């Protein structure tokens, strides 16, 4: 990113209120007109364990975290080493701890960051009702240039119900920290900017954005089984659906949730479920049913580290294979992927549109990083997509209704139960145009062709990918990526461009079906491609090879979760190619 930014971490154990502190800081920053991205990391304990809030502030919207952090404020050192790999500190980083709590653990000191002490507990204890985390916030604000006023309104709103005394105590601690900041070594400060006009900034997580996209797209029935890190999609949807006249059912398992939404959608109500890898695995058979019976459903997979139970709370882009290839038999369907917190909204809404238009299951891939990150971002645009299903309303004179008629587009008008004269039986067995089971090769071929035609002929417009040219028209290098690796790639491109480099970024939003002509056009003039993804097996790269012709010099940059591939590593390769 070209705009100035500052990256910091607040860490501490259970009671330390790390995540609360991070949220307050985010809100205050929004008041100050800044943009923000916050991700959280926690230890294995269910409650009360150590946690870290990783935050980046900037004066422009933020696509990605930086490669390292400028500042780490540790409220205590409890198990903080667990996060060491996730919060790289460099020599010019600043590590602040409470001198009363001893030395920083070695794991944080590999690159010898600068260190400073801040007697957070001591300062806090001097203030009635004062808490260390507010002192820390104050110090951070002071160091990065966040005005006190921006925090004041946040604290008074948040603590209104606790009364003025609580507000005063908090602000006193904050101010004390703010004052102490002057004695601390410098970290980057952000310039003041004008606050955005009212309504123009949103604070939203990827999981909430996914939920909103579903409702905007027309989803009114959701069935799901809780699973980390998808549960917040459902938690947001349950009360929100109720507000727009929809319903969320907690199912007994994922086999039930996928089949419940198939039933609701067969009944004419756009329907969705959200899950993560293990749950998606259980849904595979019935997603195949939705393909064969041509029932539109949307399945959101908020990916986490696999295989098997893996690491439930951490991010990885490794469910691409199962999403694209998971079903038995040939089962053409649609897979789309969100490439930022904001894009969770766009992509999910688009997914509902695609599923309904093509009467086919559509999978939405997001991940823990996108889903559980909170961003301060510009108000998302209104979108025209809305689930629009071709329905059959009257039978053709003297004809039996052909539910699976062999149309040119492959999409056959669907009768919704309740429509007189069009009763039919939807079937997962191979069938003829009427829906009657058939084991004839000719019926199988015809229905297979039709189901493939639906998704192959559909006009996906320009949404199939986000394409960014670092410098219009120039360069023979492309980064091809998807999902949450897009943010770092975008930032790498910006930096490369700032250094005079020329390259193109292609982030695929439409993962399946493949769009070879479109990618070929997007790769015009490209001689070298860098494929970036967060998977051990290089799944995205393999998928590209299978369906696309890639530039002769194509390099695959991939690693498993939970560590993201930072902008710096991508930039290194771009630079290597330039020289």
């Amino acid at each position, binding site marked *: 990113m070209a705009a100035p930014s500052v990256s910091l971490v607040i860490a501490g154990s259970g009671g330390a209120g790390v995540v609360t502190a991070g949220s307050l800081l985010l*809100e205050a920053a*929004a*008041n100050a007109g800044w943009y923000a991205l916050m991700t959280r990391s926690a230890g294995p304990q269910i409650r009360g364990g150590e946690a870290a809030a990783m935050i980046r502030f900037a004066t422009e919207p933020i696509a990605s975290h930086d490669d390292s952090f400028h500042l780490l404020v540790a409220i205590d050192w409890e198990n903080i080493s667990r996060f060491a790999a996730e919060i790289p500190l460099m020599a010019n980083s600043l590590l602040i701890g409470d001198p009363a709590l001893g030395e920083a653990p070695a794991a944080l000191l590999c690159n010898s960051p600068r260190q400073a002490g801040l007697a957070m507990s001591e300062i806090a204890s001097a203030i009635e009702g004062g808490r260390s985390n507010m002192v820390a916030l104050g110090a951070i604000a002071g160091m990065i240039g966040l005005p006190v006023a921006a925090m004041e309104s946040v604290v008074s709103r948040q603590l209104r119900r606790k009364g003025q005394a609580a507000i005063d105590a908090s602000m006193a601690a904050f101010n004390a920290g703010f004052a102490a900041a002057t004695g601390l070594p410098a970290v980057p400060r952000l310039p003041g900017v004008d606050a955005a006009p009212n*309504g123009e*900034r*949103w*604070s*939203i997580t990827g999981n*909430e954005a996914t939920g*909103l996209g579903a*409702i*905007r797209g027309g989803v*009114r*029935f959701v*069935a799901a089984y809780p699973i980390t890190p998808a549960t917040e999609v459902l938690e947001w949807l349950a009360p*929100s659906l*109720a*507000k*727009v*006249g*929809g*319903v969320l*059912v907690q*199912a*007994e*398992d994922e*086999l*039930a949730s*996928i*089949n*419940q*939404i*198939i*039933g*609701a*959608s*067969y*009944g*004419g*109500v756009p329907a969705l479920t959200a899950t993560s890898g293990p749950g998606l695995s259980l849904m595979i058979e*019935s997603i*195949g*049913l939705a393909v064969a*019976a041509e029932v539109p459903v949307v399945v959101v997979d908020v990916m986490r580290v696999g295989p098997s139970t893996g690491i439930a709370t951490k991010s990885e882009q490794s469910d691409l294979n199962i999403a694209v290839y998971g079903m038995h038999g040939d089962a053409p369907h649609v897979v789309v992927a969100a490439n930022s917190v904001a894009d969770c909204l766009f992509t999910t809404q688009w997914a509902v549109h695609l599923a309904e238009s093509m009467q086919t299951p559509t999978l939405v891939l997001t991940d823990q990083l996108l889903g559980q990150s909170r961003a301060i971002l510009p108000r998302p645009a209104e979108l025209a997509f809305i689930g629009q299903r071709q329905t059959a309303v009257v*039978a053709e004179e003297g004809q039996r209704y052909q539910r699976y008629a062999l149309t040119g587009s492959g999409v056959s008008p669907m*009768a919704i*139960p*309740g*429509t*007189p*004269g*069009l*009763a*039919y*039986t*939807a*079937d*997962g067995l191979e069938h003829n145009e009427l829906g*009657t*089971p058939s084991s004839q090769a000719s019926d199988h071929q015809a229905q297979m062709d039709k189901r493939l035609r639906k998704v192959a002929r559909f006009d996906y417009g320009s949404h199939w990918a986000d394409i960014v040219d670092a410098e219009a028209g120039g360069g023979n290098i492309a980064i091809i990526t998807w999902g949450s690796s897009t943010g770092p790639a975008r930032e790498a491109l910006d930096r490369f461009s700032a250094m005079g480099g020329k390259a193109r970024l292609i982030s695929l939003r439409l993962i399946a079906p493949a769009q070879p002509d479109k990618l070929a056009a997007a790769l015009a003039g490209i001689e070298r491609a860098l494929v970036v993804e967060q998977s051990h097996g290089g799944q995205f790269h393999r998928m590209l090879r299978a369906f696309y012709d890639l530039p002769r010099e194509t390099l695959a940059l991939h690693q498993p979760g939970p560590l993201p591939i930072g902008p710096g590593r991508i930039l290194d390769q771009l630079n290597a190619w330039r020289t």
Partner: protein
Amino acid sequence: MEAAVAEKRKLAAKDYKSDIKPIWCPGCGDYSVLNALTRALAELALRPEEVAVVSGIGCSSRIPAYTSVYGFHGVHGRALPVATGLKLARPELTVLVTSGDGDGFSIGGNHFLHACRRNVDITYIVMDNQVYGMTKGQASPTTAPDWEGSKLTPEGTGINPFQPLVVGLASGANFIARVSASDPINMAKIIVEAVRHPGFSLVQILSPCVTFRPEQQEWRDIVRTAVVDYTDDAARAARRLMTDDGFNVGKVLYKGSRPPFKPEFEVTDGSIAELEASFVI
């Protein structure tokens, strides 16, 4: 077309049949279930478009396509969740599920438990032939432990049979009946009652598989009309069902009065703009 006709006159059982020829073996009990089901729909005077029949996989699960109402023939064992989603999203439809002892109690056992418990207003008709007919004759959960007719369990399963009505009751089914395929008229009557009863209704049908369990043709002689009338006391029903031999048929055995699960599903005055407003900072 059917709707127009329906307005003019009450439909007959045959109007609820499609023109697709069943794949069933001659003499299969499922023919008589199809007859009773269509007769019941006629008796209920429902227009075909108001009804949906959902099923999984098995000989018995083939029924939907043989009717003229809306049908859904899904995957093995998952008919109940499909029906649950359909009924919750479209409460005005009459939703029935047709299943077999394998589809319903083996692979579909978990949904059975939770459908009983959830008590959505659907009617669950299980054609129990104590065998997997479709896959050519393996033991099902209701098969006797000493049945040696399957090559998969050549010395019998050695496992106690599943008692669907007891488990259904224990899990919260709101209506429980057992009928015999040999008495389609009474079967139709009880299906009508099951559909009319609010909540989850469970109807077990002894429906012989003449091909893999030819001895079941004797069922018509073994079954007897249950002597007592239904109870609404679950504990009493449990005692009765746990001690009966499975051949008391032709009557409702339990009727509960739990209100069905029916989350509100109607457009309210909330708007998406309101939801969006909560993100504005």
